[in-house]
């Protein structure tokens, strides 16, 4: 775990009730108030995103995220296994509707996500710079994330045409293979590039009609959790994307072992974690996708979480 994340467990109270006692100097950077008009900034409470709602973790635990200078920026929800299970329930419930939404509609909704992110660029640049990125690097990451979503929005009604087939069987049958989403996909998003990495992870999953439960970058979860607000205002149906913040060490096993998850994606190079994911995935023959290095967006990432369905019908009178 990264050094600049301090953890505490609280049992009696939700995480943010006592935040006044914590030093929050860095947070004000996100919403500056001019010195001439001394006004106390209204600080955002970072919460989970489950089933289209923003609950706190049921566990009441938090972890502090600090900026590059070690100042506390936010108390993030430290999601529990129960939060994860609830997110899976939401994702499963959303699957039927989202997977049968037309490709055109999914494309429009994804494009809408890009529009909303564009409109909130400044907020994300602010979060990224707070965490130590230069303004230029932050702006680049945000625009890359927007473009990534537009790219996958365009794929929703095209990958099927590229990767499906009509199969010339020898018998008198019409036979075709189409792609269908694998189902509920759990993903442990990359630690690096907390916005672009997260968006690159989610976009191909939902472009293909799957629903997702994602764990935000542990080192820098701010952007991923704020991205929930973008999704929320983009007509993405509740439950299609569920976002948790928390500890990889604690949640990885659950992401891989849950019996109602159909595929698990792990981003990172920790060989012990990779082995754990691969082993636990066998509980219900999950598809396992390991991404050690970030990959440039391409339709094969949509294909990673697609199933091929082949249909036969006799030809005759």
């Amino acid at each position, binding site marked *: 775990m990264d050094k600049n994340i301090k953890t505490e467990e609280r049992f009696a109270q939700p995480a943010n009730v006592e935040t006044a006692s914590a030093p929050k100097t860095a947070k004000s950077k996100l919403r500056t108030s001019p010195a001439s008009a001394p006004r106390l900034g209204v600080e955002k409470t970072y919460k989970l995103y489950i089933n289209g709602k923003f609950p706190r973790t049921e566990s009441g635990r938090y972890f502090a995220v600090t900026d590059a200078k070690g100042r506390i920026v936010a108390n993030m929800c430290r999601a529990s296994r129960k939060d994860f299970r609830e997110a899976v329930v939401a994702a499963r419930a959303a699957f039927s509707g989202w997977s*049968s939404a037309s490709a055109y509609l999914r494309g429009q909704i994804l494009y809408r996500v890009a529009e909303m992110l564009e409109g909130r660029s400044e907020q994300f640049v602010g979060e990224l710079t707070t965490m130590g990125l230069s303004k230029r690097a932050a702006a680049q990451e945000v625009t890359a994330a927007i473009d990534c979503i537009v790219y996958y929005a365009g794929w929703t009604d095209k990958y099927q045409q*590229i990767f499906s*087939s009509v*199969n*010339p*069987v*020898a*018998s008198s*049958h019409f*036979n075709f*293979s189409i792609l*269908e989403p*694998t*189902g509920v996909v759990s993903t442990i998003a990359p630690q690096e590039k907390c916005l672009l990495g997260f968006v690159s992870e989610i976009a191909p999953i939902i472009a293909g009609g799957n629903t997702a439960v994602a764990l935000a970058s542990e080192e820098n979860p701010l952007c991923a959790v704020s991205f929930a607000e973008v999704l929320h205002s983009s007509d993405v149906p509740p439950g299609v994307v569920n976002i948790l913040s928390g500890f990889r060490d604690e949640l990885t096993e659950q992401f891989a072992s849950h019996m109602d998850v*159909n595929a698990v994606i792990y981003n990172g190079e920790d*060989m012990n974690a*990779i*082995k*754990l994911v*691969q*082993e636990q*995935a*066998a*509980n*219900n*023959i999950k*598809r396992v996708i390991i991404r050690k290095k970030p990959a440039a967006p*391409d339709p*094969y990432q949509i294909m990673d979480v697609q*199933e*091929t*369905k*082949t*249909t*036969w*019908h*006799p030809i005759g009178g």
Partner: protein
Amino acid sequence: MSNVKHAIKLNYDTEWEYAPAPESTDHISLKDRYDLFIGGEFVAPKSGVYFDTINPANEKILASVAQAGAADVDRAVKAARGAYENVWSKMKPAERGKFIYRIARIIQERAREFAVIESMDGGKPIRESRDVDVPLAAAHFFYYAGWADKLDYAFPHKTPKPLGVAGQIIPWNFPLLMAAWKIAPALACGNTVVLKPAETTPLTAMKLAEVIQAADLPPGVVNIITGDGSTGASIVDHDGIDKIAFTGSTDVGKIIQRAVAGGDKKYTLELGGKAANIIFDDAPIDQAVEGVVNAIFFNQGHVCCAGSRLLVQESVAEEVVTKLKERMQTLIVGDPMDKNTDIGAINSAAQLERINAYLELGQKEGAAMYQAGGKTPKKGYWCRPTLFTDVSQSHRVVREEIFGPVLAIQTFRTLDEAVTKANNTQYGLSGGVWTDKGAKIFKVGQKIRAGVIWANTFNKFDPTSPFGGYKESGVGREGGLHGLSAYLNLH
């Protein structure tokens, strides 16, 4: 019952008898003992152990085959690695393809021999091995041969590269056909192979080794080693293997998925199933009944994609079940070598025991069991075609894969109920739908979470047609263009 039209019945138990129509076996050649096929030669196992393979229809020993131990697996993997590095990966793809075409042609030439041995060793009716298994095996090699020099067209924007050495473990239900499903695409993609046939059905694989020798394949490109589960485990665990391709039970599939965790081996798994065949009231009922028979009694029900559950719309349930029982009474259970036989021998004593345990269990759980009459031979392993009615979703005969000629029948009222019941399973390999309405076919076909949908047909296979499961029925596809990616790295 009053409004159901009964078929005209001939009573074969007392008044009529089928004249035997046996396939001759004098044209085949079987050795008493088969060694391992490694590096292009037949070599004795280092383990020194052999075991017998029997004919399940008469329990007579057909031949003894070698038990490959870990040292033998190692030798086979090294032979495959050498052939991969030195020959196969360097060969012009078109030449590689021509070798595979040769295999297809020789199988076609020796088709009758293969069919007879397949039925003797595995118990399946000669009609099936002759008309399905062997021609499809040849077709598979022929199809994938042509891909060898066309791989660049299969995956846009990617450069396909072979994986290396593939370890392939196949089941006993379609011995030669499964060998073809595994070997053909692996070779076409430039990989070399170590293949292990199932313990109870090794003979056609050893005959295939002879074909591979006759086709002059470079030594080591295909290695075929016989043995039991421990041989399979040695293959899965071997460091020199780049990819595992397994067809078999979901339980073993999970063991394999765990075993390769943390390593670099790729894998594809073709596992179990409990497919639902759905008959709507607007279906052509006679055709559907015939389809149900084919779905569950084909190959004694030893089929992972068998339609082992039947969901019938309530309004036609009585008619369907009556007609099905009448049709079952005309199915001939017996000598696999007889060309009239519909249901051959159960593959092994162990499998028969498993099936019988389920028959007992089903009745104990309160289901009504129906078995078609008729005599079965005294020697050998037999199971008459069986139905369970009065079952609910929680019955184990509805939930678990029996892998025998045993059908569980449930009813439904609405399309949604049928789909919900069909999908209420850990499996997702196949599904069937019977209706005259095209729109309904597409709707149900879309909603069934399974890799293969047969609409107004069932149990059809073709090398161009991708096959494989959703959920716990497996990972990856075999057959067709989609089957190539299992044997390639895409850069």
